[in-house]
């Protein structure tokens, strides 16, 4: 990861800040500049709900190099309580316990870090509730 790019997007990663169309009310994560439903460019920042449901998941045994030490990683599609779907890791998960339909809650965990002396990248992950 690049520290400055992470810093610019930190609200997305730690607070799940997305966007909401002021005209039709559609919500998005990650945020968009133009509403995909009504075409409006009048959107505002909107914090996404922190709870949702697993709609699909996979076990990643060969993750990207930044996440190699953390293998296996459990990646899931989460339908948040406002209907927006996000991709996220499941924290503290044992493979046999994850099920589609499980309720989850967003928390903050380490995503990765730039070695021993670099930046630590924190962001959302979901834990089973």
């Amino acid at each position, binding site marked *: 990861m690049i520290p400055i790019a992470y810093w610019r997007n930190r609200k997305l990663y730690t607070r799940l800040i997305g966007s909401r169309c002021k005209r039709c009310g559609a919500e998005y994560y990650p945020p968009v500049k133009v509403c995909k439903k009504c075409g409006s460019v009048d959107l505002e920042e909107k914090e996404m709900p922190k709870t949702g449901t697993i709609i699909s998941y996979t076990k990643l045994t060969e993750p990207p190099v930044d996440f190699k030490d*953390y293998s296996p990683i459990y990646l899931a599609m989460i339908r948040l309580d406002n209907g927006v779907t996000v991709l996220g890791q499941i924290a503290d998960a044992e493979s046999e316990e994850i099920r589609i339909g499980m309720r989850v809650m967003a928390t903050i965990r380490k995503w990765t870090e730039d070695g021993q002396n670099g930046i630590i990248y924190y962001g959302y992950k979901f834990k089973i509730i």
Partner: protein
Amino acid sequence: MLYSMRLNSAILGYGAYVPKYRISTEEIARMWAGEGSGPNRMKAVASYDEDALTMAYEAASIAMKMANYPEIQAILVGSESKPYAVKPMGSILSDIFGFNKILGVDLEFACKGGTEAVQMISGMITSGVIKYGLAIGSDTAQGRPADDLEYTAASGAGAVVLGQPNGKEIARITHSVTYVTDTPDFWRRPKEHYPMHLGRFTGEPAYFTHIMSSVKLLFEETGFKPSDFNYAIFHQPNPRFPVEVGKRLGFKEEQLKPGLLNDELGNSYSANTLVALSAVLDVSKIGDRILLASFGSGAGSDSFVIEVTSKADDDDYIPLRERLKNYVEIDYATYSKWRNKIIR
């Protein structure tokens, strides 16, 4: 040095976070002694993607929800295992919670960083400088492999949201005392991964002297005696010390028992007494009075009088001991990898 302060701050929300993973002290003993165990049965271990900051967030989130997300003006985080040597957790947490006009600072005093945060924020509230503050203690405590400390040095976080009494608070903090001396019982030099300690010296001249001095002063200042308290919480470096200091001060076992967690969780350093406070507040009733006394090596002890005024108003809240039933035991190899004990 002794000093005391009358306080008028309120606990509006509280939260404790203990990681899901445990290692048994039998497993640690198997590694280094072939058999046996430590003074405690298990200790809590942070997962590979957890550190003092993520655990602080977890505990604070529980406390903030219980307090109905007030406009926080100070976040003080006590820890001796900060993820960065220079870069405060206070500012990162402020940003995550969305508060920027705020005092966001880290504190360190071995195992009493968390209660220092409570004391300082209570002081700011009592004096009217701020309305709401968040005090956190969080640590991924380090114990050198094969050292006595490895059996107990654990992970966890505790948090309280403090504000001015408003009639709806969970408890009031009415008095606090601190006793501090220069005592070399435990220390860690810059750039060192593991702390050093003077073995049995950590008992009498350190733990017992400082806790007993601060609690006795608290009794002198307030006129209270052990029988005036429904519960007493003492720092728990192992299962034996808090029971022994309670006995010496005149407390009975039933006053101590609800807060005793070391046997199953180990010592989460700055979080230690705040995690125990959560367990006690979970079972306390309106009108109960709690004595809390922390201990930090180096050395010092903060004591508090806490009076319970109402029950938490949060339907989603799950009591700490209920949450502790869900844990997974790991082996020494996994623990070594997750807690950076393997050099590559």
